[in-house]
């Protein structure tokens, strides 16, 4: 669900639109979504506001399955410099995790696994501090090698 080509670090983005677009492009490039999906993710924020900024520094843009999702997917973009989404509580945003669902329930397990990983104590801080693909995966992929917990 989170292949390395869906993770980018040190991404330069001038504003929230560029940040969401960067995550959308990762999904477009691997054929997980159509370009229309990136546009739809931008439209959701324009219409509903920055409710996708779910925690300090973290945005989770997404749109409807019918907006161009070809397969369930996640993409993570860690920004070089954080940007504001207009969320008084949680700006500025450093990490953008875009997801695409193919129906209203098919993505649930993957999203629950992602959220579960982010709810672990210290996970959000570790994600904000991550500067490499490996560091991102270490936070977000809950299946860790046995014995690696102490590392």
């Amino acid at each position, binding site marked *: 669900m989170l292949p390395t080509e869906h993770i980018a670090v040190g991404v330069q983005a001038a504003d929230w639109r560029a940040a969401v677009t960067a995550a959308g492009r990762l999904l477009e490039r691997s054929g997980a979504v159509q370009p229309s999906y990136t546009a739809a993710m931008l439209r959701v924020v324009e219409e509903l506001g920055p409710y996708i900024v*779910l925690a300090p520094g973290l945005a989770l843009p997404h749109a409807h399955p019918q907006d161009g999702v070809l397969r369930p997917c996640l993409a993570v973009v860690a920004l070089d410099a954080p940007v504001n989404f207009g969320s008084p509580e949680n700006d500025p945003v450093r990490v953008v995790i875009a997801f695409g669902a193919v129906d209203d329930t098919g993505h*649930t397990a993957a*999203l629950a696994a992602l959220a579960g990983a982010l709810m672990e104590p210290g996970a959000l801080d570790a994600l904000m501090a991550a500067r490499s693909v490996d560091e991102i995966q270490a936070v977000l992929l809950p299946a860790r090698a046995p014995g690696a917990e102490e590392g």
Partner: protein
Amino acid sequence: MQRWKILAVCGMGLGSSMILRMQAEKAAKVLGIDVDVELADIGSAAAQAAGADIILTSPALAGQLMHARALVIPITNYMNLNEMVEKLNNATQPPSDM
């Protein structure tokens, strides 16, 4: 025991509302309360809110739900169980006189 009816509301009813449900169910275990959490998108939330005691949502969407009879609780950090526990505790406990 009272069963609290909770509606978790987000833009599409498929992403962040599911995360709210995960946290609300965890918080309910911590608090020892009984909850029934349903998901809604902001467009249909008003209709679905009729039977709800509590609405959980983002601060960015809370303003659109203020006409609901249910208590609207904005959640700022979806990944922080403590915030959910504290807010659900305040909402479900009778006020005590210090």
